[in-house]
């Protein structure tokens, strides 16, 4: 009997991912929740590796698991009362939210299982991984190339979004 290694790895990572995501929501201390967020980002990077998207996986670890969580931890520690016993309290209607989430998840799982999906079909044999020059070259072409199909327009809009965010942060955070 052969073991399907990617399938086993997927289920292990998926359980870590969903479990950590739940922990982010239910942990009573906000710092613990933030630390579980690191696990969520790390597990997501694992999923990307399984999808042959190594570059995205590395970026995920560097930016999300590294920089973003550090920023979040800083923000928590600079906030008053963040170290109290129940800094991540439950809403009074948590049972309703939980019920809705379970129903929604059941609905989506049923829909995905019962309908044909075009993306990720067997014929869609991961074109990025087989491209000449590896995934990074292909990714670069997909982002900027003016000659072949590329997402240059949304990429440029995203740069304006970042600029707006910086200007806005200065406008709101500046000393009088």
């Amino acid at each position, binding site marked *: 009997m052969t073991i399907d290694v990617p399938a086993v790895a997927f289920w292990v990572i998926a359980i870590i991912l969903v479990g950590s995501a739940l922990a982010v929501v239910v942990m009573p201390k906000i710092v613990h929740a933030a630390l579980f967020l690191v696990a969520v980002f790390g597990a997501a990077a694992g999923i990307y590796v399984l999808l042959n998207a190594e570059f995205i996986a590395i970026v995920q670890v560097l930016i999300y698991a590294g920089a973003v969580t550090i920023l979040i931890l800083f923000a928590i520690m600079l906030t008053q009362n963040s170290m109290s016993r129940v800094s991540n309290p439950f809403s009074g209607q948590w049972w309703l939210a939980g019920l809705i989430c379970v129903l929604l998840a059941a609905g989506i799982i049923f829909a995905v299982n019962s309908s044909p999906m075009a993306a990720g079909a067997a014929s869609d044999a991961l074109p990025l991984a087989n491209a000449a020059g590896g995934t990074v070259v292909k990714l670069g072409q997909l982002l900027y190339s003016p000659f072949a199909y590329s997402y240059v327009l949304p990429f440029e809009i995203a740069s*304006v979004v970042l600029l707006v965010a910086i*200007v806005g942060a200065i406008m709101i955070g500046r000393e009088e």
Partner: protein
Amino acid sequence: MTSHIDGIQIWMLAPELSVVLLGFLVLGLDLITHNRRVVAATALIGLLIPLGFTLSLVVKQDALTPDHTAFFHMLVVDGYALFFQFLFLVIGFGVLLVSYGYVEKFLRVTIGEYYSIILLSLAGMMLMASTGELISVYISLELTSIPLYILAGLSRSDTRSAEAAVKYVLLGAMSSAILLYGMALLYGATGTTDLTEIARNTQAALSSGNLVLLAADVFIFTGFGFKISAVPFHMWAPDIYEGAPTPSTLFFSVGSKAAGFAALLRVFIFGGLAAISGGTYLWVMVAIVAAVTMTLGNVVALLQTNIKRMMAYSSIGQAGYLLVGFAAIMISNSPAGNLGILAFLAVYVVTNIGAFTGIIGLADATGKENIRDFDGLGRRAPFIAAGMGLCLLSLAGIPPMAGFWGKLFILLTAWNQGSALTWLVVLGLINSAISIVYYANVVWRMFVAEPEKRDRLAMSGSVTLTMAVAVVGILALTIAFGFLLTGLGGGAGGLFPTATTP
């Protein structure tokens, strides 16, 4: 199908590009000169450049790429996109002009910073109407929304403003997440993010009853439902409208709503999602949301004492009428409902700018924003009160104002869809009658009620000028509503390239 990017494609992006560059210019100009008039004049006159580019695209439609798309189908410059570009430039002109005095008096930011944030958001709105690919639609939505969060929190001495900004960020992020979930499901089901391709693939999947497409439809409608403040996703609107600085509120109520509808229609019609409604009764969901939105907006508006909260519920009610048009599109997949929505939006934008100009004028002069503060405004500031009264009566749909024709046309379109939407039309008429009460109440207070003070209010030049423009606009729309419909016909129908080919 894909050609490399050339000058013609850059030209097709020129309106948005020039708005972004104008935003940068205004921001930089602030560092060089401290003369507010120079900065404001640069922004207002500078808006003529994107306007000129938009008009050049309208006139020279034959010189565009054959299928009117650029940047690998991500930019779609059809009549629909050009209509919205024009509408957003009008909004930008009105908001920049009317906020000139208010920013100096109440906000501790420079005029250049304020204007640049509005201009960059405006570029996002224009892109929301003219992008034909899911990632571009989403990132344009973020370019629109992030400046709006900033605009909500700009009166930094006011805790309500901070609360508004935090609520807006959290709920906006939540709605973006729901929208993205829907888009991810749509990508999963169709294997592409290109709306034209999606339309082709959904047509093929129509008979097989694809449940993922249905789920994606619901998620995407919910995500945009936040942006257009449809019930039950409206909870943010009153608090944020009340807490934000009033010119920002004006920008939310016209810009954000028009952009939300622009992208909603673009994704649902151009992306062929509306076509799957016939078999799945998705229009029932839209019709119910429209009914609840109209009713809740108009009934709760009756109870308000703060004019900005009243206008928030009024704008929820107006979104309800627009959704009646959307339900008509969903049930028939025909351009008629789309035409009604475009005409209604054009009228709504001009009238709401006028109504908010009156509110900003009063806040400018007295710092007050309750409905009872409007007592006797007819004697204290006759021109502003008269213009605002005209706009409120148009919003209420009193004949023969433009608002009446817009509402009549949208309800007639729904009526023509057969008996399925008759109840919705009747409900729309009842709501219209309810709305007269609270709009007329303000008019009555302005012209009949006895004021506490009788002194004349000095209105700033920018407010008076905006009101004059709005009044001329609304009178022109009233007289020329028929021409508006004829002119919009091409733009409304052009969104349905896939509907005719089964």
